[in-house]
C-alpha cells in the first residue's frame, strides 16, 4: 500500500489532475458562496431594490425570481460538479490508479473502497 501511495503521489499525471480538480472545486465554491452572500447582503443593505415589482400589472417583486434563482443556481452548480467529476476527473483518475497498480504490482486491500 505504501509503495502504491508513493508511486501515485509522484506521478506527474496525478499531480496535474489534483491541481485541475482542486482549482475547479474552489472556483465552484467561490461562485456558490458569492451568489448566496450577495443575496444576503442585498437583503441587508438594499431591501428596497428587491421590493420593486416586475411590472405594472403584477404583485410579484424582483425578490421572488431572484430568491428562487439562488436555490436553482446552487442546484445547477452541484449538477455541474457531478457531471464534470463523472465525465472528466473520474476516468482520468481511474487511468492513473490502474497504471500504478500495474507498475507496482500491488493489489489494493479494499478494491470496493476506491469507487472505481
Amino acid at each position, binding site marked *: 500500500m505504501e509503495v502504491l501511495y508513493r508511486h501515485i503521489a509522484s506521478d506527474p499525471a496525478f499531480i496535474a489532475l489534483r491541481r485541475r480538480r482542486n482549482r475547479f472545486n474552489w472556483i465552484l465554491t467561490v461562485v456558490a458562496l458569492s451568489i*448566496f452572500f450577495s443575496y*444576503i447582503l442585498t437583503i441587508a443593505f438594499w431591501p428596497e431594490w428587491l421590493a420593486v415589482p416586475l411590472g405594472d400589472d403584477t404583485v410579484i417583486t424582483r*425578490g*421572488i425570481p431572484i430568491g428562487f434563482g439562488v436555490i436553482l443556481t446552487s442546484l445547477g452548480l452541484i449538477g455541474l460538479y457531478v457531471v464534470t467529476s463523472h465525465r472528466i476527473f473520474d476516468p482520468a483518475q481511474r487511468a492513473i490508479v490502474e497504471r500504478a497498480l500495474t507498475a507496482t504490482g500491488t493489489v489494493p486491500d479494499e*478494491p470496493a473502497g476506491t469507487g472505481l
Partner: protein
Amino acid sequence: MNHVIAGALPAPRRLAHCARALSVAVPLVLPAVVMADGPGPRGGINVTAVSMFLVFVAVTLGITYWAARRTRTSQDFYAAGRSVTGFQNGLAIAGDFMSAASLLGVAGLIYMSGYDGLIYAIGGIAGWPVIMFLLAERLRNLGKYTFTDAVAIRLDAVPVRVLSACGTLVAVILYLIAQMVGAGKLVELLFGVPYEWAVVTVGILMITYVTFGGMIATTWVQIIKATLLLFGATVLSVLVLAHVDFSVEGLFQRAVDLHEKGLAIMRPGGLVSDPVSAISLGVALVFGTAGLPHVLMRFFTVPNAHEARRSVLFASGFIGYFYMLVFIIGFGAIALVTGKPEYFDPVTGQLLGGSNMAAIHLADAAAGDLFLGFISAVAFATILAVVSGLTLSGASAISHDIYVNVVCGGSAPEADIVRLSRIATLALGVVAVALGIAFEQQNVAYMVVLAFAVAASVNFPILFLSMYWRRLTTFGAVAGGSIGLATAVACMIFGPAVWVDTLGNERAIFPYKYPALFSMSATFISIFVFSMLDRRGAEDSARRFDAQLVRAHTGIGAEGAAEH
C-alpha cells in the same frame, strides 16, 4: 394537565395485552390520545392522524426488528454495513435536514411575514454546495464512522477526538432539546396528548429504533419519512395551486389582498435588519450545515466516494425541491386560511395553535379532514426520525470516539463496542427526555442557532483544515476549536436571546443574535496562530498530510463495504 395524566394512568394496563404485539410504545400513545381532553388543532382528536401515525410506528418497528437481526458489528451499527446506495442515502440525508421546523416553522414564518420565510428556505440549501465541492468525497475516503476519524488520521488522535466529540455532543444535545420541546408542543396540539406523554413517547420510540436497529433502522425510518414528507408537501402544493387555477400570479395576488400587511409580504422585512446579523446568520446556515455531525456521519453509510457524491446530489435536489414547495405552502396558507373563522380563536383572533400551525390548517382548508390527518402524522414521523439520527450521532461520539479510541486506545472487542453504543443511546435518550420536559416553558429557538454556531465554529473548521491545510497541527486544532466553542457559547449567553430574554437583564453585552460569524472567525484565526507557533508538531503533521493525500483523492485504502 395533571388530571389528564392521572386519568390516563390505569389505561396502559388495560390496553397492554392488546398492544403487546405492536410494541411497548404504542400503549403509551394510545390511551393518552383516547383519554386526553386537550384541544387538537380544531378542538378534537383526529382519528385519521392517530391511525396513520400508528401505522407508521408499526411499520418502523417492523423495520427495526428486521434491522436488529442484521446489526452484528460496529460497522453495521454506525454505518449500516456501508451498503446504502447514493439515492437512498440522499433521501436519508434530506430527511435528516428536513425537520418539522422546516415544514411547519418556515411555512408559519411565511404565513406571518411573507418573503422573509424565503430567506430561511434559501439558507437551507446554501450549505450543500460547500459540502459537495469540498467535503463529501474526501470525508468518505478518509473516515470510518464519524467525521472525527478523518481528522484523527493526521493529528494526534486523543486530544483531537476529545475536542471533536465535545463539539458533536454540544451540537447534538442542543439540537435534540430544541426538537424535543418542538415535538412535545406539536404533538400536544395535533393529537391532544399531554406534553410530557408526547416527549416520553418520542423518547421511547427513538431509543427503540436506535438501540436495536442502529444505523440500518435509522436510515430506513428516515427514508420512509422523507418520502412521506415530500409526497405530502407535493400534494398540498398542487392542491393550493389548483385553488388558484394554477396561476402563481393569482396565488400571490390573493395573498396580498388578504394579508394584513398587504404588499409588504412580497419584500424582505425586518428578519435581518443590520448587515452584521445578516452575514452572521448566513455564515451559521452555510458552515453550520457543513458541520452537522449527524449529517456528516451519513457519508460513511455508502460504499465509496462515488456514492457519497451521488448522495449529495440527490439530497440537495430533494431539499431544494422541498423548500420551494414550502414557499408555495406558506403563501397558500395566507391565501386559503386567512379569513376562515374556524381556524382562529374567537376571543383573541389568533391562529389556533400559533403561526406554526399554518401548514396544518392549510391541509384542512385545501383538502379536508383526511389530509389533515395525513400531514399531522407526517409531522410527528418527521420529529421521530430527526431525533433518532441525532441520538445515533451523539452515541457514536461517546462510544466510538471517546470509549474505543481514547479510553481503550484504538481497539476494543466488537461485542463491547456495540453494547456500549446501546447504553450510550439509552443514556442520551433519557437525558433528551428529561431536558425536553425541563425546558418546556422556555423559548428554545436560540438552541438551534447555537447548535449551528457550534457546528460552524468547532466541527467544520477542524474537518476542513485537516483536509486542506498542510501546516495544521494538533495543538493549533485543539486550541482553536476550544476557543471557538467557548466564544460561541459566551456570545450566546451574553447575547440578546439569553442575557435579555431568559435572564431578564436590560441590555445585552454582546449585541448580535447570531454568534457564528464571530465564533467561526475566532476559531480560524486561533487555529492559524497556534499552528504557526507550534514548531514541534508541524513536521509530523505535514508528513501525515502528504501520506493521506493519495487516499483522500483516490479512495485507495478507504474503509470498504461489509462482506455480508
